[in-house]
């Protein structure tokens, strides 16, 4: 390949887009490393503390798109205290100072401020796409800056963020001359929306493909919006509250019938059931349906809707659909690839809406299923073994039995054999979450069979350090391991320190690791940041000159090439 001029090699590289492949290319030789780094368009940084902006810019001076992830996954469930970190400001400042022509920024679990958004909006002339997932720290004022200043914006996609809604006029900050909108998702905003500004914006956006509204958009406004945008592909309907206005419903039905490109439907935050039938005419085209926020809709109405959705590939639903409803899904949705069933009763021990029967039915009926997230009250080994036999193609298998330590409800045995069957059958399994009563045995199976596993979530499981060791020794492709409330301690943590260099991160909370163990690990592995998060004691632990036998509440360690971070709050100690 050295006989070709660089431009030719670069042209070949243009066809290689996955991060993993580009990383591999860059390792071939010095010349390829150089060509690759100047031509990389999309940079993915899975842990914002593994590298810093200066080194990013030195290696990739010409990128257009940056993806950054901040807090660890368990932050979604409030296990990471406020102020821990993940600030995007230093990144945007560094990028703004450089000559990078940033066009796309995708952030997940980061702290974003209005100041950051303002700086972003002013610094990059060709900025096109902002995607914020599970972020916090900003308000609608920040959105107003983006709307006002980003002349070529195409995507503003806000997913599950905590946004301070000042009920301002951010939507009216898009200039009248602005017509390039393709994606607008503000479903997570809690406050009122300027409906007039929204309608005018949608009316002048011929390229609009994805529109996800928040709860403040009533039915009649929805009808008008859909009438303005019949080309819509992805729609989030907001509250969909029934105002007993049959005229609105008729207008909506008429508008919906014109939306022949509609493929994805979500929202229904406060939906009244009888208007759901307005969508029946387009159901046969739907490939994605998210009803997981529709707590108001009774299972029977959900089923009536789903019966029309024969092409569904992705379904997110609440467990109010019941086992019977899942049987309907299994017999109707033969193209189903991804299913998520969320709980409606968080306390467990009550209404058994979905059980192992629903899971088995789905596995039997949907041959293309490869991703599942299933919350339920009870499970059996027999069911899991059947599921494994029916569906050996799982890539993601996440089962959450609501009650910790719950055994097989028929045999009272641990669920080791059931999960063992899953990992043995599913040779491509990349992500696994286990739950219920589990001994070290399940981890032996995981270590033995889950050769492709990259992410494992463990809660209330295992008996001894051996469990964790089986996983660390066996799963060669492990990248993210997160463990809570399990009896794994220093012996497991310290057994193979080099293992952590092959992983992105390890989270352990309410386990048996001690301060002494963490310190020993940090000494042995200077390429790791070993963070101890102790909100309650603050500095009392260290000051007492403790021998380090005290248990650590939360441990988060990750490989990094830039050493200890400087923005850690006082309750986070980094060794």
């Amino acid at each position, binding site marked *: 390949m050295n006989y070709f001029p660089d431009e030719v090699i670069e042209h070949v590289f243009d066809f290689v887009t996955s991060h993993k492949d580009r990383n591999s290319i860059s390792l071939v030789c010095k010349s390829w490393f150089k060509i690759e780094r100047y031509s990389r368009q999309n940079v993915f940084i899975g842990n914002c503390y593994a590298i810093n902006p200066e080194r990013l810019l030195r290696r990739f001076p010409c990128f257009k798109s940056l993806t950054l992830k901040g807090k660890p996954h368990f932050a979604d469930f*409030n296990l990471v205290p406020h102020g821990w970190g993940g600030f995007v400001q230093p990144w945007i400042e560094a990028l703004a100072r450089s000559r990078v022509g940033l066009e796309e920024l995708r952030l997940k679990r980061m702290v974003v401020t209005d100041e950051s958004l303002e700086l972003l909006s002013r610094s990059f002339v060709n900025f096109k796409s902002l995607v914020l997932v599970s972020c916090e720290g900003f308000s609608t004022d920040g959105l107003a800056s983006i709307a006002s200043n980003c002349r070529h914006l195409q995507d503003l996609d806000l997913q*599950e963020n905590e946004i301070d809604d000042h009920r301002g006029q951010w939507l009216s900050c898009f200039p009248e001359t602005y017509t390039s909108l393709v994606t607008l998702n503000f479903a997570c905003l809690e406050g009122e929306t300027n409906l007039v500004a929204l309608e005018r914006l949608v009316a002048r956006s011929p390229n609009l493909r994805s529109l996800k509204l928040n709860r403040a958009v009533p039915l009649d406004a929805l009808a008008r919006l859909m009438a303005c945008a019949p080309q819509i592909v992805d729609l989030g309907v907001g509250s969909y509250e029934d105002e007993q206005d049959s005229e609105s419903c008729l207008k909506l039905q008429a508008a919906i019938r014109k939306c022949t490109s509609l493929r994805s439907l979500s929202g229904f935050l406060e939906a009244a059931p009888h208007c759901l039938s307005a969508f029946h005419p387009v159901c046969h085209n739907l490939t994605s349906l998210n009803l997981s926020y529709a*707590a108001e809709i009774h299972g029977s109405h959900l089923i009536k809707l789903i019966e029309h959705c024969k092409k569904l590939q992705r379904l997110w639903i609440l467990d109010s659909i019941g086992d019977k409803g899942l049987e309907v899904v299994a017999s109707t949705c033969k193209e189903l690839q991804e299913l998520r069933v969320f*709980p409606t009763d*968080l306390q467990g*021990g009550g209404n058994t809406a979905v059980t192992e029967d629903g899971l088995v039915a789905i596995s039997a009926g949907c041959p293309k299923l490869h991703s599942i997230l299933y919350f339920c009250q009870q499970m059996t080994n027999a069911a899991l073994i059947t599921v494994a036999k029916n569906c050996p193609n799982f890539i993601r298998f996440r089962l959450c039995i609501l009650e910790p330590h719950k055994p097989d409800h028929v045999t009272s045995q641990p669920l080791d054999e059931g999960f063992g069957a899953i990992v043995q059958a599913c040779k491509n399994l990349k992500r696994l979450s286990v739950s219920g009563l589990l001994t070290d045995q399940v981890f032996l199976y995981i270590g033995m069979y889950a050769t492709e596993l990259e992410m494992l979530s463990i809660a209330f499981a295992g008996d001894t350090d051996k469990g964790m060791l089986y996983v660390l020794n066996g799963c060669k492709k492990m990248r993210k391991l997160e463990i809570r409330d399990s009896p794994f301690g220093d012996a497991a943590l310290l057994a193979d320190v080099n293992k952590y260099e092959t992983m992105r991160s390890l989270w352990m909370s309410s386990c048996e690791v001690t301060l002494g163990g963490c310190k020993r690990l940090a000494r042995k592995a200077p390429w790791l940041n070993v963070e101890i998060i102790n909100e309650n004691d603050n500095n009392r632990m260290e000051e007492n000159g403790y021998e380090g036998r005290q248990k650590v509440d939360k441990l988060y360690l990750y490989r990094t090439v830039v050493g200890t971070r400087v923005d850690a709050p006082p309750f986070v100690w980094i060794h």
Partner: protein
Amino acid sequence: MDEFVNLKETELRLGLPGTDNVSEEIERVSCNKRALQGDTENETESSMMKMETCPPRKAQIVGWPPVRSSRKNIIQTKKNESDSEGGRGVYVKVSMDGAPYLRKIDLSCYKGYKELLKALEIMFNFSVGEYFEREGYKGSDFVPTYEDKDGDWMLIGDVPWEMFVCTCKRLRIMKGSEAKGLGCGV
């Protein structure tokens, strides 16, 4: 009043010793919102109801189940709405033919008809018989009925539980000849 003070010591509850405070805390919050506002008679009434019929809720574990706050809020909102809507019959009066005074129960304490009827049987010391879809309750002189939003007296058990909780205004346990009119199969 005094007799209620010591009831807690002798009551039978599910749960490990030493977890009293936590589960009581949760119960008080979830079943007994109104008790704090009412007069003492209601308070003791409700607390006795709590002990007899409310299943003890488990202590909340931080970050469990692994569900985002935005989802938890949706479910919580739904629960709060059904709890706090006055006319929707969360606390309803219960009368029994022949009993000298009425009682009050909190419908949101129960997951379904089985639990509710059991609680009523204990409260009024009677037996309700077996429910049949066509004939109603057979095997007892007593028939559980309720008054719905429209003012009609309906047989308990015909409609889905959630619908019942939303539409029920008061309960009445009918007895004897009057009960026969509602299809008691005796």
